[in-house]
């Protein structure tokens, strides 16, 4: 089994991330990061590994439009463009029902790719000033991750989505 994760983002600045940052700065200033970016995170489970993922991405511009998007395979270290002076935390948001992933599985399968599983997530990367400390950065990101009330949390709905907070995912190799 080979699970390959491809993180896709806009080449230009992401208006969704900008809106999220603005909303957090107003609603939760104590937990708001200094920088925020967003990726579509596609998690492919397929025998062909990264080469087959590249073929899928080349076949479906609805997943990766090379004119306006770029793709990374997250590994160790910082993601491209992330300032090393910040402490970065990942928040991965997924739909509990996974209906979007199953629809894409069918579409990709019909194109002849052997796909055992597919999950579509949203990856948020939150950058906090180093002075905050990694423990507090993790805690603050956790506070933004789940919308528990009108004034607390934003990035996921507690009923229909799940959110995973980690400092582990970082780094990437550019496509």
């Amino acid at each position, binding site marked *: 089994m080979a699970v390959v994760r491809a993180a896709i983002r806009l080449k230009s600045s992401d*208006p*969704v991330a900008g*809106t*999220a940052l603005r*909303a957090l700065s*107003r*609603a939760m200033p104590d937990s708001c990061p200094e920088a925020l970016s967003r990726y579509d995170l596609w998690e492919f489970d397929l025998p062909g590994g990264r080469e087959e993922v590249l073929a899928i991405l080349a076949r479906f511009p609805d997943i990766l439009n090379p004119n306006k998007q770029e793709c990374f395979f997250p590994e160790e270290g910082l993601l491209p463009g992330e300032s090393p002076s910040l402490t970065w935390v990942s928040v991965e948001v997924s*739909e509990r*029902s996974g*209906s*979007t992933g199953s*629809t894409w599985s069918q579409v990709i399968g019909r194109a002849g790719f052997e796909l055992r599983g597919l999950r579509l997530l949203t990856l948020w990367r939150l950058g906090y000033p180093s002075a905050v400390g990694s423990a507090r950065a993790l805690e603050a990101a956790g506070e933004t991750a789940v*919308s*528990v*009330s*009108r*004034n607390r*949390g*934003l*990035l996921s*709905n*507690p*009923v*229909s*989505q799940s959110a995973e907070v980690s400092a582990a995912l970082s780094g990437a190799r550019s496509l």
Partner: protein
Amino acid sequence: MSRPGVAVIQFPGSNCERETARALESAGLSATIIRWNEGARLISSCHACVLPGGFSFQDRIRAGAVAAKEPVMEAVAAMADSGRPVLGICNGAQILVESGLVPGWAPGSVEAALAANDIPGRSGYLSGWAFVRVAEGASRSPWLAEAPGGAIPLPFAHAEGRFEFAQGTSLDHLISRGTPGLLYCRRDGSPALGFPANPNGSSFSLAGILNPGGNVLAMMPHPERAAMLWQVPPALGGSWGGLRRASRRLDVPGPGAALFLSLATFLGAGS
């Protein structure tokens, strides 16, 4: 006598505020479109408020999530807490859910979701007409008190309209808290048993939910798009379609008008 005032709150990306205001005016109410950043005092002076449909903040992050964090929602919450009627239509319903104003079991907590449509074999945005009926006990709501007992045809248009609650939440739990407001049904009023009568896979066929007090209603179908008979498609089945085909006058109330007329009666306005 001055007509009771109803605030229609316009967020960036709202697109149903004018027809919502028109439907309220047709019911004998005074509707004022208030932009989300115009100040809470304007809203507080109104007798009720409506959050109309659209795509507030372009549905960024997820539908309704950003608008729910805006300061204007504190004024809406205060209005709801004081027992005044609040209605969210489609994107407005998504905002109310993300604000924790419905179902309102633990006030202020987000306890539900309007999740992506989940229909076997298809996903994404879907629009059309559906039939709804008032849930048992829901006529306590100022929005539903005068709605007819049978099937009411209303248009819907959304990609994220599936009411969802925490895993294990039973229908009995919802009923005991007075949550069901509107239910998808078939043309004859019998329960919807799946698509297409339930157009989005909503839990328990819910088309609209209430807070425990019944004064806050979040609903996915658009009553303002069926407020006049001319808005009903002639080809629509059921009694309203028949009325539309037979009627020589079309500028009379349509099936969606019942909600606005209910509010007008509750607020003591004559149409």
